[in-house]
């Protein structure tokens, strides 16, 4: 990294055939990734999927076993951390406890011998609205304030690439929402390339231009958040990014426009363009909010898939919407999110219901869902408990 000058703008990041093995396990199997300059890129995955390792490789804190890392077209694979035009906002913030907030922010500037580090540090602190706390020590600040100082300490250097390692993980929900918006605004303001690692799918979707879902050291799918959500390619993506109702069955009919799948005797139609496999045993799915709940069997409609009857096993009210769990024989438990257009739920526990959805909303996956349970087993025990309590209450009420 040249001293005395800022990177002119965000640079693109390219990972070519990256592999990282630690003694005893492989963190990253094989990774090819290209992040265009100036974009907000999120790497989303469960803990242990290799996303933090990827970030540390880019920062230079780990060395790849194989592969190359290019920033702005320059090969940085063998550059040391301090030579790379990259800054990181660490999960733990790692603010130096022996320095004031101002000195923390000015640290990188001083190391690179940039003119007037104090004024630039104040400017960065003003950006995160913390200039009035410049003379405090980091441990005198709240979690959210520390997070903003960590951000200021990184962006003040105008790195070609800013790495964010779950920086919002330690914040409470409300502060997290606020910081997400602030981060997004700052990214647009300064025009840097952001690489954000997170396990929070909502965070990834609200902030990033492009999301890559990572699992077991591989990228499962990459794309714009809407694209990933509406058309997941694998069962992992379908379930990690929001919830999905998935059905597996053989293809029984296929036209140029749609395929029909037989799922336990019920026919489900999916547009051919939205299905990755068109023959054999396939898994198709639909998002819970795309389902409509009917209390009586709806009339057949060529544009809609209808499944049912099923029995409502759980109803949970969450203000804006109500989540129904519907047990359909042969299909398993389906999740339905219904907007609360009327007061209260339209169906109660134990009611017989049908579900339908526009066939355009279905999607066909590239793989089969794993055997791992989609829902925690406690849902059913909780519903049993709720039913028991309800029956007891009605008995008492009757007495």
């Amino acid at each position, binding site marked *: 990294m040249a001293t005395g000058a800022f990177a002119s703008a965000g640079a693109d990041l390219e990972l070519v055939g990256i592999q990282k093995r630690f003694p005893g396990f492989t963190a990253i199997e094989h990774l090819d990734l290209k992040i265009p300059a100036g974009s907000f890129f999120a790497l989303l995955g469960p803990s242990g999927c290799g996303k933090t390792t990827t970030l540390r490789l880019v*920062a230079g804190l780990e060395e790849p076993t194989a592969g190359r890392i290019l920033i702005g077209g320059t090969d940085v694979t063998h550059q040391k*951390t301090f030579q790379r035009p990259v800054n*990181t906002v660490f999960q733990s913030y790692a603010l130096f406890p*022996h320095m004031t907030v101002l000195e923390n922010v000015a640290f990188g500037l001083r190391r690179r011998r940039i003119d007037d580090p104090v004024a630039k540090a104040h400017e960065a602190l003003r950006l995160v609205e913390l200039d009035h706390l410049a003379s405090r020590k980091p441990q005198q600040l709240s979690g959210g304030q520390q997070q903003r100082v960590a951000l200021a300490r990184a962006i003040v250097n105008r790195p070609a690439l800013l790495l964010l390692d779950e920086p919002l993980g330690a914040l409470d929900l409300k502060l997290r929402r606020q910081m997400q918006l602030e981060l997004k605004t700052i990214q647009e303001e300064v025009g840097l390339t952001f690489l954000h690692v997170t396990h929070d799918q909502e965070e990834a979707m609200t902030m990033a231009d492009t999301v890559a879902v990572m699992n077991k050291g591989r990228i499962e799918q990459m794309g714009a958040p809407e694209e990933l959500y509406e058309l997941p390619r694998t069962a992992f993506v379908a379930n990690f990014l929001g919830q999905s109702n998935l059905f597996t069955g053989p293809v029984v009919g296929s036209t140029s426009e749609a395929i029909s799948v037989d799922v336990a005797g019920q026919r489900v139609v999916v547009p051919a363009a939205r299905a990755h496999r068109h023959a054999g045993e396939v898994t198709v799915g639909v998002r819970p909010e795309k389902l409509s709940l009917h209390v009586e069997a709806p009339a057949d409609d060529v544009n809609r898939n209808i499944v049912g009857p099923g029995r409502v096993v759980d109803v949970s009210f969450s203000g804006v919407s109500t989540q129904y769990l519907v047990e359909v024989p042969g299909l398993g438990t389906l999740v339905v999110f219904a907007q609360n257009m009327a007061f209260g739920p339209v169906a109660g526990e134990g009611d017989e219901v049908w579900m339908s959805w526009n066939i355009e909303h279905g999607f066909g996956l590239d793989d089969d869902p794993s055997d791992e349970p989609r829902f925690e087993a406690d849902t059913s025990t909780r519903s049993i408990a709720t039913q028991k309590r309800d029956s007891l209450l009605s008995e008492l009420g009757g007495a």
Partner: protein
Amino acid sequence: MAFAAFATTTAPEPAARRRSPIALLLLLPGILYLVLFFLAPLVSLLLTSFQKPTEFGDIGQFDYAFRWENYVDVVQAYWPHIVRSFGYALIATVLALLFSYPLAYFIGVKARKWPLLQSLMLVLVIAPFFISFLLRTLAWKQILSDESFIMTSLKALSLMPTDAHFTGTPIAVIFGITYNFIPFMTLPLYTTLERLDLRYLEAGSDLYAHPFEVFRKITIPLSMPGIVAGTLLTFIPAAGDYINASRDFLGGPDTQMMGNVIEANFLVLQNFPAAAALSIILMSVILIVVGIYVKRAGTEELL
């Protein structure tokens, strides 16, 4: 008084909400101990330092008085020893720090991945304590004496002039003090370095600091509590040391320190007021030096 110096490096305990008679009862043995074995001798020492010789009395007979000239006399007679004591102690402390820091860093940071190696190395640091330091210092005298294998070999190889000595020189005394206090330096350094959060170092290098700058700007300031504790544990006893500098061990007539002079005045010359005055001077100088040092190091901010 060493404890008073350390008190600033640890966070003060939150005060008890109410006075409990049990707490006082539990403190009583400690207070009694301090009064009996620290406060009373200190007062006695102070009184002795102002005593004047008994008129027409024998050697070693003194009367209580307020003869403050004792202090002037001992400073005039022994100022080279006073200077030498603090000089040797300072040099030995710096040498021990230079030797112990890399050692403690290796045990506390680099060896974290191998806990077995870590404990083995710690045992090796502590192992010398199993043998009396008198014996160890005597052993060094044997190893470094004029007839020893090392010295004769060096002379045979013309690496040293044939009439050169090692024992009895200031270098030998400083060597002995450094050697004896290395564990006292290493252990406190180890305890702070062992807790050193490496993420700060990573953050430092992420912010364009090359390894030396990371060490100077982050590692050293964060390990300041250990440096302060280690240097105090070395400097304070080293300033009063009288074994290494003694003629029976590594020292000679020109290497006598305050400890040797105090010993001679108490036990040989039986000039108790002079010995007491020297002790008080030693104690006060250490107190002042340490007070300034702890204040300057500003370690209380770190914890």
